[in-house]
C-alpha cells in the first residue's frame, strides 16, 4: 500500500492546467524505470485534471495491467490535486489526503496568487513530509487511527474479560476449599472441648 506521487495543480477553464508542485516516491521502481515513470505520471495527472470538471472527485484506474489508481479532486476555485497510488490504498483516505493537501496549500499561498504562479513554482515543504507520512494510511489518517485504536482497545478488553472468567473459576475453587476448612476446624474444636469436659481418667 504506497503512494507514488502527489501533485498540486491549478486549472483554468477547461484546458489550461498548470502543475504547481509535485512530489514523487518512486523507490519501488528500479533505477532505470524511474526516468520513464516520472513523465508518465506527470502526463497522466495533467490529463486527468483536464478531463475532470470543477467541484468533482474522481478515482480512475490508470491501466488494466498496472497496479495504480489515480485519485483527483478539482475544487470549485480551480485548485486541484492528484494522488497516484496503488490499487490497495483506500479511496477514502486518498480523497481526505487530497483535501488536506489543498487546505495546506491554500494556507501557504493565497488564492489570488494562483493565477500568476508558473509551473512548479509553488513550494510547500510539508508536501514531501505529507507524502511520507501517508505511506502508511492507518497511522496518518485520523479516522483510521481512531479505528485502529478502538480495535486495539477492544482486543485488550476481550482478553481482560477472559482473565476475569478464569478468576471467577479460581474463586469458586477457593470458596469450596474454605468451606471444607471451616468444617474441619469446627470438628477439631469440638473434639478438643470434649477431651476437656468429660470424665477424668484417674
Amino acid at each position, binding site marked *: 500500500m504506497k503512494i507514488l506521487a502527489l501533485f498540486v495543480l491549478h486549472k483554468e477553464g477547461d484546458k489550461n492546467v498548470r502543475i504547481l508542485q509535485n512530489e514523487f516516491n518512486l523507490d519501488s521502481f528500479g533505477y532505470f524505470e524511474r526516468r520513464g515513470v516520472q513523465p508518465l505520471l506527470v502526463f497522466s495527472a495533467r490529463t486527468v485534471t483536464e478531463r*475532470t470538471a470543477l467541484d468533482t472527485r474522481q478515482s480512475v484506474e490508470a491501466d488494466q495491467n498496472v497496479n495504480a489508481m489515480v485519485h483527483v479532486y478539482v475544487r470549485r476555485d480551480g485548485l486541484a490535486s492528484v494522488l497516484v497510488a496503488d490499487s490497495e490504498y483506500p*479511496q*477514502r483516505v486518498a480523497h481526505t489526503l487530497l483535501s488536506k493537501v489543498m487546505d495546506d496549500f491554500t494556507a501557504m499561498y493565497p488564492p489570488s496568487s494562483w493565477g500568476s504562479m508558473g509551473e512548479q513554482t509553488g513550494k510547500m515543504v510539508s508536501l514531501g513530509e505529507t507524502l511520507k507520512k501517508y505511506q502508511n494510511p492507518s497511522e496518518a489518517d485520523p479516522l483510521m487511527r481512531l*479505528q485502529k485504536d478502538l480495535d486495539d482497545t477492544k482486543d485488550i478488553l476481550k482478553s481482560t474479560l477472559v482473565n476475569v472468567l478464569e478468576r471467577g473459576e479460581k474463586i469458586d475453587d*477457593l*470458596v469450596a476449599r*474454605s468451606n471444607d476448612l471451616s468444617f*474441619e*476446624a469446627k470438628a477439631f474444636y469440638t473434639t478438643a472441648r470434649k477431651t*476437656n469436659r468429660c470424665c477424668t481418667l484417674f
Partner: protein
Amino acid sequence: MQQEARHRWAPSASKTLPSTTTTTYIETLEPFPYQTLNNNNNTSSSSSSFFLPLTIMPNGRDRTSEFQTTVRTFASRRNGLDGPLPTTINRRQHPQSPTEQRGIFMQHAKRIGNDLSQTFLKLEQLSMIAKQSSLFHDRTMEIQDLTLSIKQDIGNLNRQIAQLQQYMRDTNGVKSKNSQTHSSSVVFVLQSKLATMSNDFKQVLEARTQNLKDEKTRRDVFSRNTVASSLTAAPSIANGRPSVLFRDEQRTTSGGDAVIDMGSDGGHHSSMKQQLLAIDETDTYLATRSEAMQNIEQTIVELGDIFTQLATMVRQQEELIHRIDANVDDATSHIEGAHTELLKYLRSVTSNRWLIIKVFAVLIIFFLIFIVFLA
C-alpha cells in the same frame, strides 16, 4: 362475308377514342366467329387468327415495336430493383449508356434513403424505450435487440454508401460536370444523414447508461451496499460499447471521404462519461466517510458493552469472595477455640498432681488395709 366482317368491326372503331387504338382493339377481340372467316378466306390466309386484325384493319397503326421497348425498359428497371447492388454494378455490360448509369445510381440512392428512414424509425423506437425503461426491467432484451439491429443497419448503410461512391467515381468519365456534382452532392447528403443518425444513436446509448447508473444508485441507497464496486464495472461497459461502434464504422468507411469524424468526438465522449461518473464519485466518497464514522461509532458502543459485562462479572465474583472470607474467618475462630481447649487441657494435666497424689495415697492405704486384714 368479308364485307360483312368489316362492317362488324367498323362501328366499334368509330365509338372508341383514337389515342388508345391499340389497346381497344386488343380488348375488343371478342370470341370471333373466325371459323366462318376461315371458311371464307380459305384461299387467302392459312395462318392463325392473330394476324387477322392486321390484315382487316387498314387505319390501325402497328405499335408492336413501341410495346417491345416499353417491356424492355420495365424489365430492366425491375432487374435493377431486385438484384443486389454489387452484381448490377460489376456486371457492366459494355457499353452502359449514361442514362442507364444514372438510373442505376438513382435507384441505389433511393434504396439507401429508404433504409435510412427505416433505421431512423428504429432509432426513435429505441430512444423511447430507453427513456421509459427506468422502471421496467424486462425491456433490456428489446433494447439489446434493437441496438444490435440498428448497429447492423448502420454498418450496411455505410457499406452501401461506400459502394455508391465507388460506383460514382468509376463512372465519372462519361458524365457531364453537372451530373458529377449532382452525384457527389447526393452521396454527401446521404453520408451526413448517416452521421446524424449515428450521433443520435450514441446519445441514446449514453442516456440508457445514465439510466442504468441511476437505477443502480437508487437500488444501492435502499440496500446500503457500497457503490464503489459498481464504479469499476461501469466505465468498462460504458466505454466498451460506443468504442466498438466507432471501430465498426471506421472499418466500413474505408474510402476515407466519409463525413463521420468520430476521432475528436471520442475524447469528449470519454470526458462526458467521466463527468457522469464524477458525480457518483463525490457521493461515494461521502458515503464511505459516513460509513467509516458509523463503524467507529459501532466499535465504541461495543466497547461500552464489553465494559459493562466486565463490571457485572466482577460484581458477581465479589459475592463469592465474601463467602470465602466468612468461611475462612469461621475456620480461624474454631481453630483458636480448639487451641485454647488444648491449652486448658494441658494446664489441667500438668497442674493436677496434688489430686493424683491424694488419690494414690488413699489407694495405698486401702491396699495396705486389704493386705493386713487378709494376711
